[in-house]
């Protein structure tokens, strides 16, 4: 539905936002974004993980294996300090972008 490039650029921000307040594992992140976007943004293993790994490589999120009693170990992702900075920046950028859109074409985000 959404244009693919636009989707990719904003998805990274979404992922970062998901792990902003607490660590989550991969499936959780994907499910959460799907829910909150009312099914508009859907993930699959092939589309989610490359993004996760790319973010991890750039040092914006950090993954950690966590072993809980009685469960298999899982990989949880958290936002790094650098990630926080980028996230704040991206939020500002998007805000300005939508403000401009509104001024020019009369789009009013809710």
């Amino acid at each position: 539905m959404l244009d693919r490039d636009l989707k990719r650029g904003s998805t990274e921000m979404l992922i970062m936002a998901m792990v902003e307040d607490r660590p989550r594992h991969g499936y959780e992140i994907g499910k959460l974004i799907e829910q909150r976007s009312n099914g508009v943004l859907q993930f699959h293993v092939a589309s989610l993980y490359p993004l996760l790994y790319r973010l991890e490589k750039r040092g914006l999120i950090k993954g950690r294996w966590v072993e809980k009693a009685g469960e298999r170990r899982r990989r949880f992702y958290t936002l790094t300090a650098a990630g926080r900075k980028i996230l704040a920046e991206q939020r500002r950028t998007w805000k300005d972008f939508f403000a401009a859109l509104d001024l020019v074409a009369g789009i009013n985000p809710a």
Partner: protein
Amino acid sequence: MPDWKKEIRERLAGLRLAPTREAEIVEELSQYLEDCYEELLAGGMTKEDAWRTAFEGLDESDLLARELSKVERPVSQEPVVFGARVAGRINLLSDLWRDLRFGIRMLVKSKGFTIVAVLSLALGIGANTALFSVVDAVLLKTLPVAEPERLVLFAWQAGRPFRVSGMSGTSNVPGPPGTRTLSLFRYEVFEKMRQARSQATESPLSDLFAFAPIQEMNAVVGDQAEIVSGQAVSGSYYAGLRMQPSLGRAITDEDDKPGASPVVVLSHQYWQERLGGSPAVIGQQLKLNKQSLTIIGVTPPAFTGTMQVDYHPAVTVPFAFEPLLQGERSNLGTKDQPGVWWINLMGRLKPGATQEQARDSLNGAFQAAALEVMPPPRKANQPAQLEPKDYPRLITESGSRGMLDRRRSYSPTIYGLFIVVALVLLIACANVANLLLARATLRSAEISVRLAVGAGRWRLVRQLLTESVLLAALGGVAGVVFAFWARSALRVLTDKDTGILPNGVDLTLNWRVLVFTLAVSLLTGVLFGLVPAWRATSKDLTMALKQSRRTTGAVSRLSKGLIVAQVALSLLLLIGAGLFIRTLYNLQQVNLGFNQENLLLFRLQAQQNGYKDERLMQFYQQLLARLDHLPGVRAATFGKVALIANDNWFFDILLPGETEMTAAGKHITNRQAVRENYFSTLEIPLLQGRSFTAQDDERAPRVAIVSQTFARQFFPDEDVLGKRVTIIDNKGEVEIVGVVADTKYMSQREELKPLIYTPWQQEVADIGEMRFTLRTAGEPTALAATVRQVVRELDSNLPVTEVSTQTARTQATLGQERQSARLLSFFGGLALLLAAIGLSGVLAYSVAQRTNEMGIRMALGAQAANVMRLVVWQGMKLVLLGLALGAATGYGLKRLLASQYFGEDAWQRQMAEQLYGVKGTDPLTFFVIAALLTLVALIACWVPARKAASVDPLEALRYE
């Protein structure tokens, strides 16, 4: 429960990710799929539907692999296209280029391996290259003249009864037993042959010329006097060789006539070093043995003469002047002495002529001339007339390399060294092959995937080969660099006195050597690359795809075999080194029979300056008187023969009642002519009778002192004092007035032989050159300058040569043994180092493969020590096998050489010549070396064993 991991892994196989990373990703992604699956099931889907949905995005256009490949950095970066074979494009060059770049990247990735491999190869290839330059210079290089293959060297063969009037020079021409085979001719014979050639209507030779060494002439340049080596040549020498001088002109037939003006041609080296390379030397005078000659030319730099490989004459004169230069020692003959056989003959063939034709054309003239100059019989058993079967006849061989005699004598040493060095290279190759084998096993998953997606086996082998050839090329380049450095080591080996290789050979690395290096590099590259490449790409390894990550971890039998072979070879080399070291030690402990401490030695050749008879005696008296009173000198003496310096002087003697006809040649004794205080200065004990005194001069009755061995051998049951013996070629009888203790004479090795001393004043004809010995109060060399000064004051034109101390001279005589010991130790140590590295490397890979097994063992309660013991034992098994194999090979080789190749007696003789005080199969040496090897191997095993023991069992188990 569907196997998610398997599915994910299959799709990621082509990415060649590092094992840990791949395991992580597989785990994480499979969890995702499982969560998805569970949720779908919980939502009411059927198993099949849920499974299919979960896999939905995964299969479409290999998105996962593509996206991940952009993020993850794979182990290698060569892209693999799933399912499609890059078929048909035969773009060999771009393929090779890609292989090359890939190979370079692989080598840079594993720097440690690359460095070790390149270094081992460099050492092996470099040593081979350096040795080959020696082989080339000594055995292969032809003379730098036009068409050297047309040159022919003459020699002759005769039955034993054929007699010559005397011989001077070396000759080592092989001939059938029972004959005399010599490469030396007499001048009169040469003249007759020359005449025959010029008178023949159709001679196969265009030129016939002769040359002979004149050793140790006294050359005076400016105010410097020094001893030079020279040669005499016939007029057509340079013309026959077609040799153009680089300056001035060469000697011609006109110069070789009696009464011609004396001329001399210089060698390029002498001209550069002593005359400054100045073109103005042409026309100047040079003084040789007090004769003045005109310099007429200089030979080109590359030409060092046609003589033996280590004799490079600095000055060349025509034969006509030899009598002038040598005076009474002339080999051409004086009024008292007939000429001797001392000349070498060479000819140049006309185009189309053969050696046999040349030989046949001159044989008649040669034979007639040789028989004409045959001296009358001296012994009773010599026939006056010779039978035709014993007549001397000409033989020929190629002259393209000059004289071959001494080259032949160096061959065994050179080939021996070559074998050693080749073995080391073999060991280095085995090492690299082993390491490559191990690496190939590690990459087996990658290789089998590529095979599975359709890559040709030959293509893969080619790529693996590229890597190994690249490695070998790097090793070759590094090897050439190493060979340059090795030249300075080779210079030590070619030292004039102590070298085991001939002196003065041109050791530059020429193109032939470079081609050789290239060939060796390529060969080693293909050798050690082919087998691992072939094995790694064999179809059986596709099993690795089906299996889990864990490979079998077994070290292949080939690897094991290589390690065993390396250990065996190192053992042999090191035992050789051990034997030579013990030999050297034994020789250094030998009792010389005199006190060699604080003795300063030097040599004077007064005869060269024209001293003789009365003048000579006076000169010596004056010099000795001054030396006696020099501060720091406790005693000054001299003798004709230098001790422990491979110098000798020996003659036949006749015991009382014998005549020359009955007993000539039956008794041979060493001789020495000495000053009165010789024995006291050298601290040789006098056992019977008296020593010489100043009264034993030329007017007194002739006396002699003999050694113990002399008395024992020639007068076993009698008192030797007062007996009279005759030294043949001397003047009359001598009376024995004393007996001294034995001393070693020529070398430490040589067994004691009879020795007779005579007083110097009674030997005036034979003492033209003497060896002076000064017992000093302190360090001998401190007085060297003073001594030169003393001599210069008496005669400024007399060079003082061979200044040394007795201890240095004694050590120098052991130079060959020392070099052999050093060489074998170096190469043996090198071989051992390479074998240890190889062993360590192979064990390390084995440990890496068996990490899982180690973990299980330790989880089940094994201690770290047990695991270590396991690894060490795995390695030591190979080492012990190698020791056994080495011992068996050595023994078998010895038996083979002794019985088949040399013959039992010749073998014993060889052993006796090389070793001293220790047998070739000495058990002590074997056990010490074996223990050393075992110790080094233990250390080599300990390193990877430590690593094995430090594996965390949980980590290990996690690897599936």
